[in-house]
């Protein structure tokens, strides 16, 4: 009898220590300590013993029972600690509210970061502008053919208007900052547009200006390629071509391969295979003169691009109106 009890205890010990989850432990508990369990059946056998043996057997059985209970508890805790306990990682969490930035801000911040690497500072200027800074000093005197007659929003015609491009900040910077300087500007601009999915009276432009003795078209091209490759990716194809803008001479345009059709031609690129991305060039000598610089002694470059289409492409937004009318869901 005594041997039976000790064997049962040892058997339980090895089973318990080898158990790998609580379900198994529960089975073991039932096997040994349950009503029909081994310990109970041993207890029932006590009545068949001699009176002299009864007391000792009862004591040993009790000891065995306590030992098994302890072992079970210890092993259960051990299993919990090692993480083998059944656990559901798919349960929904309680998410703290994390705020999101507007897509346009995200794009502007990314562009700012790239240009900061190239020694550019950030700049802004007024949106309620004068004709002088928006046009006149930008080599766009009254009656200039590149001055569109109808697309400016006037606050007080003809002198006070809402800036129609961020080039007005270029004029101000050329007048106020001491060269050498490099600046980038991101801001709201306004035009007379009937609002639809691709046009808005308010839109964002991104502009860069650098003024420094010795700047050349090669510097401009290097700067733009660095930016385009950093922002749009190394693999994009770039076309850098001659293009007239009254604010620059020589002037250029930078196009990117159309990613929607792999340059096969689609409605986005109007069958051209290329998307016009930005306009650029060396700051026109007339502008330098207007702002008090000698074009024979110092040179500069400037570039500008519309931001909204870039934001829309990046964030898969189809309608320009949803950018600035509260339609965006932040989650």
């Amino acid at each position: 009898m005594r041997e039976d009890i000790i064997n049962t205890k040892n058997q339980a010990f090895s089973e318990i220590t080898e158990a790998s989850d609580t379900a198994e432990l529960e089975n073991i508990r039932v096997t040994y300590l349950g009503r029909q369990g081994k310990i109970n059946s041993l207890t029932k056998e006590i009545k068949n013993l001699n009176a002299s043996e009864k007391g000792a057997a009862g004591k040993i059985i009790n000891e065995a029972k306590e030992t098994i209970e302890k072992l079970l508890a210890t092993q259960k805790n051990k299993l919990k600690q090692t993480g083998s306990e059944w656990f559901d990682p798919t349960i929904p969490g309680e998410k703290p509210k994390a705020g999101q930035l507007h897509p346009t801000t995200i794009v502007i911040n990314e562009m700012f970061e790239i240009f900061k690497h190239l020694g550019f500072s950030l700049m802004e200027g007024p949106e309620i502008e004068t004709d002088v800074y928006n046009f006149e000093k930008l080599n766009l005197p009254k009656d200039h053919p590149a001055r569109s007659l109808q697309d400016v929003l006037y606050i007080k015609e003809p002198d006070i208007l809402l800036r129609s491009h961020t080039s007005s900040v270029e004029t101000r910077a050329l007048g106020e900052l001491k060269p050498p300087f490099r600046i980038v500007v991101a801001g709201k601009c306004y035009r007379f547009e009937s609002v639809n999915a691709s046009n808005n009276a308010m839109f964002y432009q991104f502009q860069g200006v650098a003024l420094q003795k010795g700047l050349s078209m090669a510097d401009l091209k290097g700067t733009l390629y660095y930016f385009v490759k950093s922002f749009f990716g190394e693999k994009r194809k770039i076309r850098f071509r001659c293009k007239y803008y009254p604010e620059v001479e020589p002037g250029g345009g930078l196009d990117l391969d159309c990613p929607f059709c792999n340059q096969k031609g689609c409605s986005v690129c109007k069958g051209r295979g290329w998307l016009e991305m930005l306009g650029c060039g060396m700051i026109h000598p007339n502008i330098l003169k207007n702002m008090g610089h000698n074009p024979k002694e110092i040179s500069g470059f400037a570039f500008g691009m519309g931001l909204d289409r870039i934001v829309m492409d990046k964030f898969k937004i189809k309608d320009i109106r949803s950018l600035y009318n509260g339609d965006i869901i932040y989650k």
Partner: protein
Amino acid sequence: MRIPLNWLSEYVKLPKDRGELTDKLTMAGHMLDKADEVNGNIVIDLELRGNRADCYSILGIAREVSALFRIPVKYPAVHPKLKENKGSNTTLKIETPLVRRVMMVEINDIRITDSPDWLKEKLIAYGLESINNIVDLTNFVMLETGEPMHAFDLDKIGTGLEIRLARGGEKMTTFLNKTLVLTSEDLVWANKTDILSVAGAICGKNHSVSGETKNILLEAASYDRANIRKSIHNHNLFTDAGIRHEKDLDPNLVENAVYRFLYLVEKNNWGKINSSVYDYYPKLVKPLKISLIFERLIALSGFSVDKEEIKEILKWLNFEISKKDSQGMELIVPAYRTDVVLEEDVIEEVLRIQSYDKIPEQILSLEIPKLVTPSYINQELAYKAHLSAIGFDEAISSAFIKENYLKYNKPLGGVGMEPVRVENPPSPDAHELRINLFANLLEYTQKVINERGVEVLFFEIGKTYSKKESKYSESRKLGLIYWAKDENNFKKFKGFLDGFFAKANISQVRYVNLGRDLDLINSYQILIDKLPVGIGGQFGNIYYAEIDLDGVLGKEQKQVARLWPKYPPQIEDITLQFPSRTMIGDIINEMAKIKFISDIKLAETYKDSHTFRIWYQDPDKTLTDKEVEAVRNKILEVIKRKFGGTVKD
């Protein structure tokens, strides 16, 4: 401009590969927009830029192809020059300086027929209808040379022919049957009684060539482009003639065009050309001379271009070299290149014909300029990061207020300010600029509420626009708006404001009750260093605050790292009672001034009793019970004296 390739090939031999042709044209400034086929002929459509008046013609593009591929241009034949008819100058009166040149010639016994196929095909490929041989020929010569021209019916033009500014209110019916009411800025051709045409833009219905015409007066002219531009924009006359005349056309083209027209009339036997021409050309336009310094070209382009190559490029562009030395050369610009007036223009010519592909990409290697980013831009960037960190989403709203939200477009706390309006609004929703950030954020919030959202946390950093007397100004603002379906209360919103100011390292923020400001109830002023920097309040159950960013700029404290104190605090709760309407913030501010109090929190409020949790702590040693008691007594003394507060028993 649409360029039928078989037409173009009459003047210059084209490369076999069409892609090579359009690629080079694109790189040189004339982007291929699209290509199509008309009756089996390829037509390329080039996006021309407004500076190149000379390129709005087949010959202009032929010259570009010639320069790019170094193939000579075959210029078309022209009629020998006729003698000038000085005597008949009286037939056309010109007193305005807006006319730069006019040539006229009479052609009698005109034979009006259908156009021959070669003529029809070219016009149709370009996109014009064929009318009759004479009208078609004027169009053909315009497309070929770039100079618009017009044929009047000589027997209908009457007497007293003149070019003058219209008298305001004069009318003309165009050949398209549209009646124009002219202004005193419109330049017109007129006779004694009628307006014959709007100069450079469109002709009238009653005086032009028709099927019955026997004799014609052909005219080609050059005008002040700015004047023409105004007329064509004002009257929406973007005709083939109009879009050419609004650009800087070379007056010498007038002559080329007239003699080309006469040549073709004679060749086809369509009429009898008068022996003399009328030529009004008061101020002869001479070709411009420009000096090009090689060093300057290299400096501006950023790479070395071979001198012989420069000469070769310019020669193919028809620039004449009038002087040269080792430093540079003097160039005579071809008269039709009205866009080339500066040395930089010549440099662009060299670069674009070489192709911008030749320009190396140079990473800015010059001295790095000083950083000049103004602190307010860094402030905005930092605040955007802070606000998103405390859970606010960024809204960017329109600078305009939609028509149905205009009632909220009022200045918050501003005196004498009014909203700025656009004089020529494209729509009622783009008429009035925002004078606060509230109206748009309210609209956005209500949208979320309607979409069954459960919480709104929006911020916007942007400008507001205002007018005071006749001065316009822009202010940079931060707007914060908050609403929640559950647990919506001011304490929560205030917590966000506190969180924002803490992130921005701004302390000493005070809130003073205002009562009511415009649409906001329970409104308050936000002050820093006793100066007002913002306004907040409640709209229904929506909480809003607007902070003036310039007011806050520079108020932030230097960030200092704080370490855990070495000596433990004693913490206790004290429950105090105050007379009603006592400002709790003021009490906490007052208590915080007492020495050895390291922190105070409002733990609980029940009616007029408030339980404060107070941290007693000395950074240099552990406070004894006796010392704590002294501090506690100080608190009770101050509270009683300043606020009439007592300990609740």
